[in-house]
């Protein structure tokens, strides 16, 4: 396998664009990434577009807006991991030698559903019994609180940290700091979660241009390398499962660390899938940033806040930057690349050299989650 580099990034501010089409949300991010890369559009050999709920041929709809068509365009649905899975497929196409220049898109428009919890597949028997995504994570939280003595208020501090970071990010959907009292006093969604424990729904798009070493070194002095690219799925059981342990993420993290030749102590910055407050704490443990049960201690030490040793979600994460499902993975990758290039602005992690992006999700009966995709980037 060949080395793979990121040579262009694009991202629109996440938010609510009910009057725009999916293509109108998507093309500005793709244009930005292509212009930034410096490669001529004709050199793009393939496009991998991730969207969970954007409908058929999303990638074609975005690319034809820019008049860049005719190449291979593959659309990928993998719930919250849609565009991170698209990045993984794009990585494979360059690493294998098949292509030299490939575009990755993540695009989603959730405002078309008019708000509320994410529409899930009614064929799933748990959904048919009243399962909603906040309830799934809330049950993880409730059990974790029971097993490790965490309080709902301590859990709420994840949201305070996320919004401290997001307030510094011009591309975040929610650029507002919240206090722990505001978190606890907001309306209940799924106990122990109030509204501020949950990521907002909205619209967004992100894009990357990735390339082989030959191309990348012509365009950039020191391009960011994709050191690991990894996708896994949940393991099915209809028996008992320890919901306080993110087995799928832990398995993926182990593979990703091995592939990149790094360990948790080498990670300077991470964008991880904090769809709900408990998720961030459980993923600290799954990534080995701390021992099991030690996540709140790590959070309260400040290590994962800007200025700490392992800054988690400097963008504000899903809780603050927003979570237009299929766009999230690409947005995380854009954030990490810009962090490693030292151009993240007010939420820059000083001197970051190794970063990771993690998108996982998909509520599906019998699985921890449907999919998990992890990428490690290095400068």
């Amino acid at each position, binding site marked *: 396998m060949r080395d793979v580099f990121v040579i262009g990034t694009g991202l629109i501010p996440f938010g609510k664009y009910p009057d725009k089409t999916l293509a109108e949300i998507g093309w500005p991010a793709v244009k930005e990434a292509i212009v930034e890369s410096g490669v001529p559009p004709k050199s793009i050999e393939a496009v991998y577009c991730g969207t969970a709920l954007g409908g058929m041929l999303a990638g074609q709809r975005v690319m034809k807006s820019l008049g860049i068509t005719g190449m291979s365009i593959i659309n990928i649905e993998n719930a919250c991991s849609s565009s991170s899975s698209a990045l993984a497929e794009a990585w494979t196409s360059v690493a294998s030698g098949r292509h030299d220049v490939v575009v990755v898109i993540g695009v989603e428009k959730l405002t078309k559903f008019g708000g509320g919890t994410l529409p899930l597949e009614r064929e799933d028997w748990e959904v048919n019994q*009243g*399962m909603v995504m906040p309830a799934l994570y809330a049950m993880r939280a*409730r059990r974790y609180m029971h097993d490790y003595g965490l309080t709902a208020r301590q859990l709420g501090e994840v949201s305070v940290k996320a919004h401290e970071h997001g307030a510094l990010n011009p591309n975040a959907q929610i650029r507002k700091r919240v206090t722990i009292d505001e978190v606890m006093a907001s309306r209940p969604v799924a106990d122990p979660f109030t509204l501020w424990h949950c990521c907002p729904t909205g619209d967004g798009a992100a894009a990357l241009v990735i390339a082989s070493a030959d191309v990348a070194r012509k365009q950039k002095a020191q391009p960011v390398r994709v050191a690991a690219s990894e996708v896994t799925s949940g393991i099915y059981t209809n028996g008992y499962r320890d919901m306080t342990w993110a087995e799928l993420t832990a398995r993926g993290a182990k593979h990703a660390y091995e592939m990149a030749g790094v360990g948790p102590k080498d990670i300077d910055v991470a964008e991880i899938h904090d769809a709900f407050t408990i998720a961030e704490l459980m993923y600290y443990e799954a990534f080995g940033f701390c021992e099991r049960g030690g996540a709140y201690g790590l959070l309260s030490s400040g290590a994962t806040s800007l200025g700490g040793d392992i800054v988690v979600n400097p963008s504000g994460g899903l809780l603050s930057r927003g979570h237009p499902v299929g766009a999230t993975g690409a947005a995380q990758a854009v954030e990490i690349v810009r962090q490693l290039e030292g151009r993240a602005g007010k939420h820059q992690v000083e001197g970051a050299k190794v970063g990771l992006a993690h998108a996982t999700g998909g509520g599906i009966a019998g699985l921890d989650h449907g999919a998990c995709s992890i990428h490690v980037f290095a400068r």
Partner: protein
Amino acid sequence: MSQAVDLAVHHDLANAEPRFVAPALVESGAAGAPRLIGGRCAKCGALSFPRAAVCTECMSEEIEKTELAGTGRVYSYSMVHQAPKGWSVPYALGYVDLTDKVRVLAHIDVPESALAIDMPVRLSVGRVGTGPAGEPLMSYTFVQA
């Protein structure tokens, strides 16, 4: 025409019979006691819920209908306040670990103040929502044992 449609709607509402959201999952047993219906693989004995068409342990398609345990413990739960139209919010949703090692998602019909991790529960049936024609939506539920 529109009057006829309206009358039809009113007729449905007046005769809104309760409807089970997943009728195959629960049956009425002796003395009306509910029975939770799952599957048992004839080849390897693995249990499934809902009853599987193909065994996830050995891929056998010989799955017999079986009654699952009617008692268990609440592994975790959440009081759900925001849900799609039709559900009676707020409702308690939980994972129940049945004594035969199967985990089942269910509405937990226990007052919020009494809900607790690991609490013993038993199978019941109850109303969980309202259908489009105003009909009560029913399902298997669990109540305090």
